[in-house]
């Protein structure tokens, strides 16, 4: 699979398919929703195994897996956690060699699903919960994927190292020389979250922001889950980007970290989930996809993981700022998909890594 330098023929074919699908999708919203039936469970148990590639932070991913295994005993669930961009690269590399190891995929870069859809490697499957409880803008019209989770890439600080009144309030504040050598941030070459955030910030604030930030002697880590952990360790005082949900988890455990929603707006990240057409365990894959969108899994993801859910019946946890009260930057996966290579190239030019 080499979508970004795909042949013209493939592009044309994809366009034709999209053109044909569009009017249809407008009338009937993709394939009919599927209930979890006793037959599906039986068939999944026969397969006995399911493999989930995900970009969500490892403890959250493993907690979800344990919940799935508890609900459907006899099915072994294996979590392959990696940064969104690396998952994308891995699936590309594996599929190019005809290795079909993955059943269900969740990336932190929604743009990947545009590519996978174009390459035709996703299977149409709409869990009942998605059909009934998810807003239209959070599900694919052809039923190939839906928004499994949402979260923000925020600024954060260590409360032992920074007083609240001195903490940065905006992205612009991070350029103050007093933060030189004190900032940690993730890398768009590894993390889908950071890729998406870098796109939104560079679109709204311009690349000059990153050019100047690169001169602040930033500590560069890979995953967007790492900056919050570096804050908790006390290794750096401030994080320029990284997962809001890790900060929720740490803060609620009593670690000295605090979240800042920057005044320019906070990048919104959507992490969809989809079933692979060539999944090695097709029934278990569908059962897992249904489970992932159930109230049970969504509430667990919110309560334990600190993530945001698009499920209408899931409640936000008390003490966390509700999504509607936060000024958000607009997400635009289609644009990220087009600019991903340029973003990586410009980023490594400024940050040298």
């Amino acid at each position: 699979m080499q979508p970004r330098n795909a042949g013209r023929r493939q592009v044309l074919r994809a366009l034709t398919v999209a053109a044909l699908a569009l009017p249809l999708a407008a009338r009937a919203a993709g394939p009919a929703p599927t209930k979890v039936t006793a037959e599906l469970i039986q068939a999944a148990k026969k397969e006995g195994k399911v493999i989930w590639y995900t970009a969500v932070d490892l403890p959250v991913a493993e907690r979800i897996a344990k919940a799935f295994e508890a609900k459907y005993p006899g099915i072994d669930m294996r979590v392959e956690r990696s940064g969104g961009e690396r998952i994308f690269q891995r699936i590309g590399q594996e599929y190019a060699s005809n290795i079909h190891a993955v059943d269900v995929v969740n990336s932190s870069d929604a743009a990947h699903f545009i590519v996978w859809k174009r390459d035709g490697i996703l299977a149409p499957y709409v869990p009942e919960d998605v059909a009934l409880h998810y807003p239209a803008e959070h599900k694919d019209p052809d039923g190939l994927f839906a928004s499994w989770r949402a979260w923000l890439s925020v600024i954060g600080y260590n409360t032992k190292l920074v007083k609240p009144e001195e903490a940065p309030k905006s992205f612009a504040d991070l350029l103050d020389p007093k933060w030189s050598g004190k900032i940690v941030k993730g890398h768009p070459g590894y993390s889908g979250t950071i890729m998406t955030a870098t796109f939104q910030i560079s679109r709204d604030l311009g690349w000059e922001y990153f050019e100047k930030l690169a001169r602040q002697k930033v500590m560069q880590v890979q995953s967007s889950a790492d900056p919050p952990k570096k804050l908790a360790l006390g290794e750096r005082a401030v994080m320029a980007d990284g997962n809001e949900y890790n900060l929720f988890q740490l803060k609620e455990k009593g670690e000295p970290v605090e979240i800042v929603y920057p005044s320019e707006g906070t990048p919104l990240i959507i992490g969809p989930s989809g079933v692979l057409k060539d999944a090695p365990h097709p029934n278990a894959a569908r059962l897992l996809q249904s489970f992932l969108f159930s109230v049970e899994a969504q509430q667990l993801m919110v309560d334990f993981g600190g993530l945001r859910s698009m499920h209408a019946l899931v409640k936000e946890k008390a003490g966390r700022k509700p999504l509607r009260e936060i000024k958000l930057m607009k997400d635009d996966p289609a644009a990220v998909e087009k600019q991903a290579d340029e973003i990586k190239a410009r980023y490594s030019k400024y940050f040298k890594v």
Partner: protein
Amino acid sequence: MGSPALPSRARPDLSGAVLLLCAAALCLLVILPIGWLVVFAFTGRGGRFTLANFRLLFTDPAFLEPLVTTLILALSVSLICCLVAAPMGWIVARTDMPLRRAVRFLVLASFVTPPFLGAIAWELLAAPNSGLLNQLHRAATGAGPEAVLFDVYTLPGLVFVICCYTFPYVFVLVANALDRIPGELEDASAMLGGSAWRTARRVTIPLALPALAAGALVAFLQAMTLFGAPGILALPAGFHTMTTKIWSLFQYPPKPELAAAASLPLLVVTVVLLRAQSAVLGRRGYTVVGGRSGSPRPVRLGPLRWPALGLCLAMLSLPVFLPYAALVNAAFSRIPSQPLTLERFTLDHVRFVFLELSATRLALKNTFLLGLLAATLGALLALVISYLTARAAIRGHRVLGFLATAPIAIPGIALGVGLFLAYTRGPIVLYGTLWILLLAYLTIELPAAYQQLQASLRAVAPELEEASRVLGASRLRTLRNVTAPLLGPSLIATWCFVFVAVVRELSAAAILFTSETKVLSVLIFDLNESGDLAAIAVLGLTMLILTSAVIAAANRVPGFRGGPLVRNN
């Protein structure tokens, strides 16, 4: 078929075929990935021949800077390792310092530690703000929160960490060479009126010099081709080395042509240095020949005995004591950067790794399966090849010897790229299976295994084998019933060496793994990506315990004397 050196046999046996098969396997193992590497390096878009990859490599600062950084890194590591390891090797081999055996054993402990794990442990110790040593420094001196004693996220920090896990190579080479220098030569110098210093300058040092030069070279090559430690430390420090740069070329969209081109300079430097070494050392007869010479007379250190031991232990605290203390701390403390106390003690991380982390079992299984297989097959292959070359058993044995040593010139990461290119497309697709990793490990570890066994085989008199052959045994049977048992301890040592090397290998595995074929080193590397230090500490300690257990078991194989590895044979 058969050998011209021996009388032809009436009854044909399979020996010739089996031996040839080994030779063919060797060619496949070495030539195929290198061939693909070279082909890809000169391939442009659309599969045409081009030099564009190299033009980019030598003009784009994004490649030139890592190249320069890598050379500075390798030179510094080589120099520092010699400065530290040579005196230590001398103290351990030639003086009456107490606990010399224990010191040798501890040097091996630092060899068993994978450099990437050492790098993570040093992050825990010497990260500028949260590092335990820096916290201790601030607490002890009352310095402000800005005070930083050590910063591991710098080029010197990286050099230091690589030195910690490279100096064993120099140490072992120097100490073994000093072990072998006959005491008579030094005695003769002393009897002729040479002072201790003069004896050292005119006799001991010149005799140990080739080993030191070889050690310097090995350290240089190790540092140049290492991926593990730079993979952990270089990114936060804000620079690339060649190996991390090559690895990053596999990010989406992957650029295997550039990765192949970037691997070739490492290969060329290695080949040139190895040629230079054999050219320099080859001409001078350094071999100390002589029947049974007296074992060297230890130099009496007198009152300096204990300070010398203190110095050795202080040096060993850097690669062994401090890092393992930091890992134990991280494994059981609620937050890895806080010193362990009773109320901070937790078993959560242990529980997480063994009960929740679903990749643990698979990675453990894959790692030990591959370790056992690679060690067994590698030792056997090395045995057969060294037999063929040492006894000149088939035509072209010199080429075999060269091929078996050639992989030493292939950096692990380059080999990873080469194997990836060779086995991700037809006719044989091995990517996604454990086989490709097995091939990688066999190729990487073959030179060391071959050299060890070849040296031991030269010490076995061929008369015993000839007797067996005269009595009608085939070559294979002779090898199995006569040669192998005679080589016993060396075989075990080789087996252990390959096993340890496989467990600590990251550079090729980082390119070749898939989700089904994950190994421990890759799992730890992945956990580092998201900063799960506590889980890494638990896995790292598990890895060390299991590795030690396997080595201990291997040294108890009935019929063989124990502890060959400890004696650095």
